[in-house]
């Protein structure tokens, strides 16, 4: 087994680009689910419309990078309205059903043959990130020290990504300490009680859906810029479910829960992958071959999630006291 590589990839995963864009997606889910109690199972669609908004604006229409970012953000806001207006007046489970369906519709439109000239079908779009790397302040070279070293492109993406995470966390922190956040948390507990106290519940749910969608969609930009491409299948439902796993792992309704959750999630995933691959290659494990390692680790994710919900349902930062109340 190559311990150097396993150690290095695992450490990199803790702050790597996967962690960054999943953390952003999970911060959005935390606002929806953790604070407001909205079951949005279509988070991947917010990332998709942002990523594609940027990609199509730059590559197909030929407009500058920053306009692409603007288009992506507007697309995320529009998606929130589209999902929210028909469903937010209904019972919570309707939102879950509609969002999961909408996310699949969005993905299928992006990968459809019909719109291949715009969205590029299942290959997606590439070649829209020059504008981003042109303003890269890092000179060419390798940064950091072993086992944590990155090239200048990775450094730039990670810097921007972690700044975005910091800003998103600051926004969540400020909001959730404020009376605005109090209304959200109250809606999570009992909508009717909030109505009886003169608050427009629909409006607050909408604001929550938009905020979580916009913060989450930043993850779509980060993915697109880091890989220089967007493909429809990256934004499938499993992206949403990973984000939920991350929120539960970190502890719902905690400011840093999604960030720590994302970090741990990817560290574990990469570590297990490294160990299993190593074990298979060196013949320690014989009951599977190297191609089965990928799927197998997701099986472990599922198992981990079950164990987590049984033994530590409040997550890492969660408050056991709150949970006990919930069960009453």
């Amino acid at each position, binding site marked *: 087994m190559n311990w150097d590589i396993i150690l290095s990839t695992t450490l990199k995963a803790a702050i790597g680009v996967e962690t960054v864009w999943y953390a952003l997606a999970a911060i959005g889910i935390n606002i929806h689910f953790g604070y407001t109690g909205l079951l949005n199972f279509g988070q991947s669609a917010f990332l998709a419309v942002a990523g594609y908004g940027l990609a199509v604006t730059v590559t197909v229409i030929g407009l500058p990078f920053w306009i692409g970012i603007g288009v992506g953000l507007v697309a995320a806001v529009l998606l929130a309205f589209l999902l929210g207006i028909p469903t937010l007046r209904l019972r919570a489970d309707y939102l879950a059903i509609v969002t999961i369906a909408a996310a699949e519709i969005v993905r299928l439109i992006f990968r459809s043959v019909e719109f291949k000239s715009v969205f590029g079908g299942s290959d997606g779009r590439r070649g829209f990130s020059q504008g981003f790397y042109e303003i890269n302040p890092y000179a060419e070279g390798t940064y950091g020290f072993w086992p944590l070293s990155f090239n200048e492109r990775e450094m730039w993406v990670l810097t921007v990504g972690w700044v975005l995470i910091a800003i998103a966390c600051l926004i969540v922190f*400020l909001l959730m300490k404020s009376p605005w956040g*109090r209304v959200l948390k109250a809606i999570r507990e009992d909508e009717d009680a909030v109505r009886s106290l003169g608050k427009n519940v629909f409006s607050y749910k909408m604001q929550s859906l938009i905020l979580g969608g916009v913060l989450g969609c930043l993850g779509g930009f980060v993915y697109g810029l880091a890989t220089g491409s967007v493909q429809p299948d990256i934004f499938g439902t499993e992206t949403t479910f990973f984000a939920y796993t991350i929120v539960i792992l970190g502890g719902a309704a905690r400011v840093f829960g999604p960030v720590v959750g994302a970090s741990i999630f990817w560290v574990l995933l990469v570590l297990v992958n490294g160990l299993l691959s190593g074990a298979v290659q060196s013949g320690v494990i014989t009951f599977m071959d190297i191609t089965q390692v990928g799927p197998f680790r997701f099986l472990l994710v599922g198992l981990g999630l079950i164990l987590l919900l049984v033994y530590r349902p409040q997550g890492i930062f969660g408050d056991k006291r709150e949970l006990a109340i919930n069960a009453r």
Partner: protein
Amino acid sequence: MHAETATDRKAAALAAFKDLPHEPGVAKPDPILVVDNVVRRFGGLTAVDVGHVEVQRGSITALIGPNGAGKTTFFNQLTGFDTADSGEWTFNGRKMNGVPAHKVARAGMVRTFQLTKALSRLTVLENMRLGAQGQKGENFWRALIPGSWRGQEDRITARADELLARFKLDAKREDFAGSLSGGQRKLLEMARALMVEPELVMLDEPMAGVNPALTQSLLGHVKDLREQGMSVLFVEHDMDMVRDISDWVIVMAQGAVIAEGPPDTIMSDQRVIDAYLGAHHDAPLSESELEEQLHEAEDALEAEIQEESK
């Protein structure tokens, strides 16, 4: 001084009702709430069909009726939590039918729920603060600038603490509302409703499931509301309480208002007896039959006592 104004308020409320006929839908001298032809059907069942009813300003009005009479459903229509099939009603002369629940509350008509709705994973204090109206910090952009709402929040907190002290919940201030007992939740819900600074408080069975000692203090609080110039409409099953605190009683049965009157005589109204016992209950017992039944009961009781003392 306080006692004096208290008796004044009560006297004023009672005086308003003094010469009113004991008829359903009777006009009140100064109604805060006027309801006309409110109908709510669930499939074939007509849960509410109220022709006309008025609630007097500055009084405590009880709404009573057998289980399933439609009291809660009626509350739901009036407060915008459910849409009436037809009918209209005015609050302070303002049309309120079709107005969504949160706007009803903002207009000054605040209700509590039969099944208490404490916001479990918010602290008692946060529950209270939520009730305050016109909060700057409830606007998204202002929320991001703590300085813009801190001052108001402090004033709200001071008011919340005052109410919590009055409702003997100050010791629970920092606890999660979900950790309160059933009776304490009732108290919290009432105190929270008062944070809205309503003109009309609508309480759906505020005493249900509350122990007798706490009931006394709750009754005191309800009377207090009238002293502070609020009007109260409350649903209650316990007639002793109704007699104790209400100035006027409205009786509902099978969705309709069937009788109105002062609390001390309402239960002897034939229509009310019919509603509670069924129109075809046995004719009134004769004197001798009554005595016989009384003896039987006494004998049974004595036998029981002897049994126990053995």
